């Protein structure tokens, strides 16, 4: 198990990508030092640690050069601590399936939300909302396939896709409250709804998922620093 000072995580509370890494650190009972970044005014450490993207999360492990990108960090942690709560399955085909859906979530699904925020006008927003709903229904199907009747994407216990998608749960509640967008609901995505309730109460997730206040602050910061496109 890593000593507290051996692993540092640069992050920001509201970032789902940072939260994912924290879930994995919690699941594997890895102690770490958390360094909160102000994304409106990035530190020297962050800019030096991730010069390519200048983004959080970044993992600093002992004397190794910094490692950015949440999915890459998660696979790294899974490889250096393979015996404690493995995150990815061991079978190559299952791994490929899991990675495919992680790629879908990160490259197709999540970007829709930023696109929604940036799109001006009601009509434009309705188009994006429709795509989000379609995406959530695809994810419902994926959940049914992966869980195979059990509680999580990973089966009896939390696995890779639970972590990759679970980081988003705070934001779904935020969108329901602030922009009347019900991403997950009892009619269209009943299994995912049950799953989100399990994730909210899971030991490794519940104290890490950010609350409404934190998300509101972050959303307002985005509105100021990356304002929506003009109509």
């Amino acid at each position, binding site marked *: 198990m890593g000593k507290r000072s051996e692993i540092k995580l640069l992050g920001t509370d509201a970032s789902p990508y940072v939260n994912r890494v924290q879930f994995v650190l919690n699941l594997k009972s890895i102690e770490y030092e958390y360094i909160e970044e102000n994304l409106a005014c990035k530190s020297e450490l962050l800019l030096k640690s991730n010069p390519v993207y200048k983004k959080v999360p970044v993992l600093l492990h002992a004397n190794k050069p910094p*490692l950015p*990108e949440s999915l890459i960090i998660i696979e790294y942690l899974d490889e250096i601590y393979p015996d404690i709560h493995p995150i990815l399955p061991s079978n190559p085909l299952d791994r490929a399936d899991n*990675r495919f859906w992680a790629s879908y979530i990160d490259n197709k699904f999540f970007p829709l939300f930023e696109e929604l925020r940036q799109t001006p006008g009601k009509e434009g927003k309705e188009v994006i909302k429709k795509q989000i709903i379609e995406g959530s229904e695809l994810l419902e199907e994926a959940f049914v396939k992966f869980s195979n009747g059990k509680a999580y994407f990973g089966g009896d216990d939390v696995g890779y896709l639970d972590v990759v998608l679970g980081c988003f749960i705070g934001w779904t509640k935020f969108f329901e409250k602030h922009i009347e967008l019900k991403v997950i609901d009892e009619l269209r995505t009943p299994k995912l709804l049950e799953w989100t309730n399990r994730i909210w109460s899971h030991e490794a997730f519940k104290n890490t998922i950010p609350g409404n206040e934190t998300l509101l602050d972050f959303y307002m910061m985005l509105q100021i620093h990356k304002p929506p496109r003009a109509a």
Partner: protein
Amino acid sequence: MAKGDVKLLTMWASPFCMRVKVALAEKEIAYEEIEEKDLMNDKSDLLLKSNPVHKQVPVLLHDDKPIAESTNIITYIDQVWSAKPLLPECAYEKSRARFWADYIDRKVHPAGRAIWSSNDKDEVEVAKNNFLDIMKYLDGTLGDKDYFNGDTFGFVDILLIGLTSYFPAYEKFGDFKLEDYYPKLAAWITRSWARETVSESLTNPEKITNFVIMMRKMFGLE
């Protein structure tokens, strides 16, 4: 090296298919190539069934089980056919390789496309400079090594070389030569193309440049 039945759904101009072909050749895996006849207008039933989410090539069918997304496919075959590993052994170096793979996937092909998909001089100049900025990072990562993987041709090499059939088209429409800016990277391209696994898997750049001209005509740019 037979480990079940292997098929690859491809399209001749897709650089993402080319990469997978290089990886299969490097691992000496025998496979059947099934080319899509008309990817844009008339996708085959097999493709639509194998990749219902994205409906895109490449798709690997291993004993009829589909695996989609080129980087995902290459990672999969590296694990199943474990002789001559493409990724480094060390967990940290493996993660660095994945980081650069992800960077290449996100940046290179879209940046190249931006160079040829406009006739506006300023837009093309911006696109060219953006592309060269990306090449700068890759050149820096390569350093003085023969390959991104070190002494041996590996994962990151395969992912990037698969995209290079398009590079002469970028140079033509952006009016630049990569070797004038990043000679080490240009030398790596030449060195890699000298490998049979690469030259036999990648579509001839001239054919690709003609394909790009055809696409420009379609967009009303020629």
